[in-house]
């Protein structure tokens, strides 16, 4: 009920305050929700969660980059660096999840428990589901930064076509560094908000020493850390690819 009201307020604000592009972003938000719903449904039917996660990421990038900003050199380059970093961090994430058993649900939760009727015999690998989560959260964070960096390199180049590749790279890095603070803090505060109840009451189930070794803490920390590390690493990656690509195109 409460959420329905919030929904109405949100959509109302968007339409009154925002311009055309904000209305467009409502549409792409709807698109992203649909992608997420489709992803979950496919996993439910039995399609490999990892495959669903990857397809969802490509689809999300398509909606967020290409629908909202058009198919042009900026968005295509962003897309390439996005997917590359997703691939690398995806592998790192997978190794960490498997090694540290960060899939599934931690103990101490009230809601999702075997005793509440949530049987774990579901025939789906929660490791791959966790991978899908990591990839999707990561991608949400990367798209923003990647496009911003690429856009600024594009602008700098078009101001002065004699700018060297190194100068273009530095321009991208500079813009990236400016927005670094904001993006990392956005992720961090969402993490804090998510875990506030957990931190307030963890003493019911954990001591400090068991806490720092627990799945309950490490699982969200892994998701957010990978997203934060990703949105920092995408800056040099996009700057690098972008500065070379833009010179190449204009030959």
């Amino acid at each position: 009920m409460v959420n329905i009201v919030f929904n109405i307020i949100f959509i109302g604000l968007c339409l009154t305050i925002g311009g055309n592009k904000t209305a467009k972003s409502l549409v792409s938000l709807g698109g992203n929700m649909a992608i997420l719903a489709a992803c979950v449904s496919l996993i439910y039917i039995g399609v490999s969660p990892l495959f669903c996660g990857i397809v969802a990421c490509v689809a999300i990038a398509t909606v967020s980059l290409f629908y909202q900003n058009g198919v042009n050199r900026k968005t295509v380059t962003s897309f390439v660096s996005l997917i590359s970093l997703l691939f690398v961090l995806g592998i790192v994430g997978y190794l960490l999840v498997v090694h540290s058993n960060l899939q599934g649900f931690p103990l101490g939760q009230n809601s999702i428990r075997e005793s509440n009727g949530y049987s774990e015999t579901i025939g789906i690998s929660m490791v791959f589901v966790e991978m899908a989560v990591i990839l999707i959260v990561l991608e949400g964070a990367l798209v923003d930064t990647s496009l911003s960096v690429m856009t600024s390199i594009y602008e700098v180049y078009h101001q002065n076509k004699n700018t060297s590749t190194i100068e273009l790279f530095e321009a991208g890095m500079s813009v990236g560094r400016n927005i670094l603070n904001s993006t990392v803090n956005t992720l961090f505060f969402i993490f804090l908000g998510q875990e506030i109840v957990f931190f307030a009451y963890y003493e019911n189930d954990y001591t400090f020493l068991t806490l720092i070794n627990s799945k309950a803490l490490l699982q969200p920390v892994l998701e957010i850390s990978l997203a934060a590390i990703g949105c920092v690493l995408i800056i040099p990656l996009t700057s690098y690819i972008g500065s070379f690509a833009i010179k190449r195109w204009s030959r």
Partner: protein
Amino acid sequence: MTRKNIAYIGMIIISIMCFLLIYNNEGMYQRPIGKVIAVTEASDKASSGKTKDFLRLEILNGQHKGEIVKAENIVSESLAYKEKYRKGNFLFLKINDSSEDKGTLSVTILQQKRDYILAALLLALINVLVIVGHKKGIFTAMGLIFSLGLFAGGVTLYNRGLNPIIITAVFVIALTFIVLVPVNGIKKETVVAGISTSATIFSIGIMAALVIFIAPPISYEFLDYLPDQFSTKEANYLFVAEILIASLGAVIDIAVTITSATVEILRKNPKIHYRELAASVGRISDDITGLMINVVFFTNVGALIPVFVISMRNDISMLTVIKNGGFFEISRFLIGAIGIVAAIPLSMFICKLFYKGDRVW
């Protein structure tokens, strides 16, 4: 080799050393820790889809250091609750008292040791921030550490009985400046952005509180980790605190962007008409709004995927999950999104308030 590069390499080396220290810190723990040296899987599967793994462990600390013991671990196919331990994992053990006299030890697995993973992730993040971000990265990393400290302080105060809304209010104001000042400096612009952020958060907070007050009571069954006895009032406070803190980061981002854009426009044209200002700012904000909303959406709702999967496989419909299990994540996203959109006019308005007239500092 510049001084900067030497410093970076030094930082990486220190980080690796810290990591190795924590990786090998069994001596610091009182509980016995065993390292998995071999895993044998049972050849036949029980009907419930669960199998038994037989583990061989070497005890690394305490009076039984060096001894090899055996342990059993029940593993499910999905691993939704159970954990599969592999060679190289470290496990906290309980040595069953009765077995000590008989000569061969029998142990129970308590928990997996993961502290070095936590260290690795945090160290990696800090290193990456400093090496890629240079000065701004260092300030961001410091901001994160301060924020975490303040957050821990806030939680302690809450446990001592202080009202969470007061804590959140102080937290929001303090944090806005901790995040903004190091990176942007103590300028009028920074202060104005900070005031815009606080104004936005308070407005949303009041709106959210009103909605919660008027609407039918929220069922807090699915708010994890809430202790069994809680009053709805307490839970409502925590809920509001939760959604406000979650949206703080995004609101700061927008407030800073809009403030600097507005200041730029006002600098070039101090006597600009309000309507023109709104149009210009609107054009700039349009670009970032969509992307920010996406970030907030996926970070909050992404974590719901496992909930959906296990619920739907247990015959609970997607709609029910959205209304119950996913309620809190979706609220956080919606409030974050409302904050992003609301911050635009609020920042612009407050900016105009502080910069009216001919002189812009």
